[in-house]
């Protein structure tokens, strides 16, 4: 209980800092950057359940992001629906697209699945070019912003923050409870998971559709933030970027990918040479992490914290309670054990060792 109080305090402090960010961030560009991280995080949080917890390596989630973004631009812009209604509709749209992609591809083994999701991203780009009447083709579409309380940069930021917090809470609940255990079981061994009663395909599909919903929401927020989208906005590299964020942050945690998303979005913006290298930097980061710390930076930090805080490495030596075992193994009438207490006891102890 004593350890919880500072943690709760820290969480409150972070929440307060995030909520009041528009007042102390300084310039609008930094606020935009944090909003972008938030929009990405809405997608990455859902994708994290797929990649980090279920172990399905989807590298083409940018396709679902594009579906959400175009959905928002068309629903709120061309059809003129209220943007706050279009936002949840984009979630539905992304979920439907996720179902469409997941139904055939989630039955495939690892590399096949990765290729299918990559193909999906390319197909979405292709279709967004081909259906010029709907998507504006290569020239793209302009995206309407959100109405009154959310029409300023800070208002938009608070909207994104609210959606991101809600999605984070949802994924945290999933990861923490029975669902999360089922997902991790599927990741570690599908056969073992199936043998203890996890419906492997249904679990995968449910989580994938959920990630589609968050991708649709993230896409809508992303589009509103960008104000103008073309097929070039959704290059395959962005899909790779989401994937790298999760792998770098660490699989099977929520904080790790959050840090990964924030760091990988902010670093190229703040350090000029990295921006020029762009995707090369993501590839290098992925390679270094895979080769050196496959568990991700998050795991590395946890190990370092444990070492610095000086918590000794506890070993779990199993010591059988020999006296009780001996008593249990003794004949029920008690005569044999009493009659020859010296001879059989060490024997029994040796046998138990």
């Amino acid at each position, binding site marked *: 209980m004593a350890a919880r109080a500072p943690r709760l305090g820290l969480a409150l402090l972070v929440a307060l800092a995030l909520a009041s960010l528009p007042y102390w961030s300084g310039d609008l560009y930094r606020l935009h950057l944090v909003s972008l991280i938030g929009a990405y995080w809405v997608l990455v949080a859902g994708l994290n359940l797929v990649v980090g917890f279920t172990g399905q390596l989807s590298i083409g989630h940018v396709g679902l992001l594009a579906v959400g973004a175009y959905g928002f631009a068309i629903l709120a812009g061309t059809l003129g629906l209220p943007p706050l209604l279009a936002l949840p509709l984009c979630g539905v749209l992304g979920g439907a697209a996720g179902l469409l992609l997941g139904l055939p591809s989630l039955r495939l083994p690892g*590399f096949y699945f990765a290729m299918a999701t990559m193909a999906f991203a390319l197909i979405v780009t292709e*279709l967004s070019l081909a259906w010029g009447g709907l998507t504006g083709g290569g020239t793209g579409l302009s995206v309407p912003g959100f109405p009154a309380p959310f029409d300023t940069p800070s208002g938009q930021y608070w909207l994104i923050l609210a959606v991101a917090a809600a999605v984070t809470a949802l994924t945290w609940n999933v990861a923490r409870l029975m669902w999360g255990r089922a997902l991790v079981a599927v990741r570690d061994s599908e056969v073992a998971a199936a043998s203890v009663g996890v419906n492997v395909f249904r679990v995968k599909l449910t989580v994938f559709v959920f990630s589609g919903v968050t991708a649709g929401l993230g896409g809508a927020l992303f589009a509103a933030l960008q104000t103008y989208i073309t097929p070039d906005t959704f290059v395959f590299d962005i899909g790779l970027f989401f994937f790298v964020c999760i*792998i770098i942050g660490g699989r099977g945690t929520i904080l790790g990918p959050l840090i990964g998303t924030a760091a990988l979005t902010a670093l190229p913006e703040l350090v000029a040479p990295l921006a020029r290298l*762009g995707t*090369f930097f993501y590839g*290098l980061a*992925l*390679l270094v992490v*895979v080769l050196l710390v496959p568990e991700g930076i998050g795991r590395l930090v946890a190990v370092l914290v444990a070492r610095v805080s000086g918590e000794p490495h506890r070993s779990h030596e199993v010591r059988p309670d020999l006296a009780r075992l001996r008593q249990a193994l003794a004949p029920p009438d008690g005569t044999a054990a009493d009659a020859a207490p010296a001879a059989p006891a060490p024997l029994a102890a040796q046998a138990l060792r």
Partner: protein
Amino acid sequence: MLAVIVSGLAIGAVYAATALAYNVMYSTSKVLSVTTGHLCMLGGVFGAWFIAGLGLPAGLGLLGAVLVGAAFGGITEVVGVRRVLARSDEHLWLLSTLALATMLQQAVGLWWGTEPKPFPRLIPQDFSAGLLDQKYWLPILTVLAMTAGLEAFYRLTLWGKLFQATSEDAFAARARGIPTDRVRSASYLLAGALGGLAGFAAGQLTFAFFALGLTLTLNGFIALAVGGLGSNLGALVGGAGLGLLSAFATYWFGGEYQQTIAVGLLMLVLLVRPEGLLGARRVRPV
């Protein structure tokens, strides 16, 4: 109509060559490398650079392109596969080869430029040859020769038999004294050389383009999965089928739906025959 068939077969030959390179690497390491298509891209880009940029004769350009491909194949093995296989975590190789492929593509894009550049003529021929132009028959002949050469190598030479032994059961092969690690390295060098050769031969068709690798990685994989993983003949059939299908799709529906139709073919084949047309049926471990 004939033009559609010829161009479809030509681009199909490139897919088939990529599928062959997949097969060579898969057989010894059971790894499907994301860098496979990039090997062909290297052949095209470096072939164009050696001949048009440095002014080398075509023969030296070919040699250089093959060497660059083989070198990157070797790098893939040393950096992306060897350490990861030793750790035996499932699918880590997918991440490491994906990272290598991304880095290579971006590096080539930064150095070579992101525009497709023309590939020089290899054999003096008039541009009015139409369907008999070298850009069509060169890749087709190359991939046929590659398949025949690979089969001859596997069946007739001792090294080929080592490859086959490693591919069938690496542990048993090692128990019989075969240096399986060296065989694996050699297979990656071979795959790189084949990819470089194919990319060089198809350069006039595909142009020297940095983003070609990703497309070929995907389409070569589709050809491989359709034809059957591990089968060289299946790679040829799958590549030709996929090339013809995309050519006819372009002819009838326009170029916008190529990828959609290619993936549709993949899904259809995987639903009906999960092991591919000519692949061996795999027993699922339980």
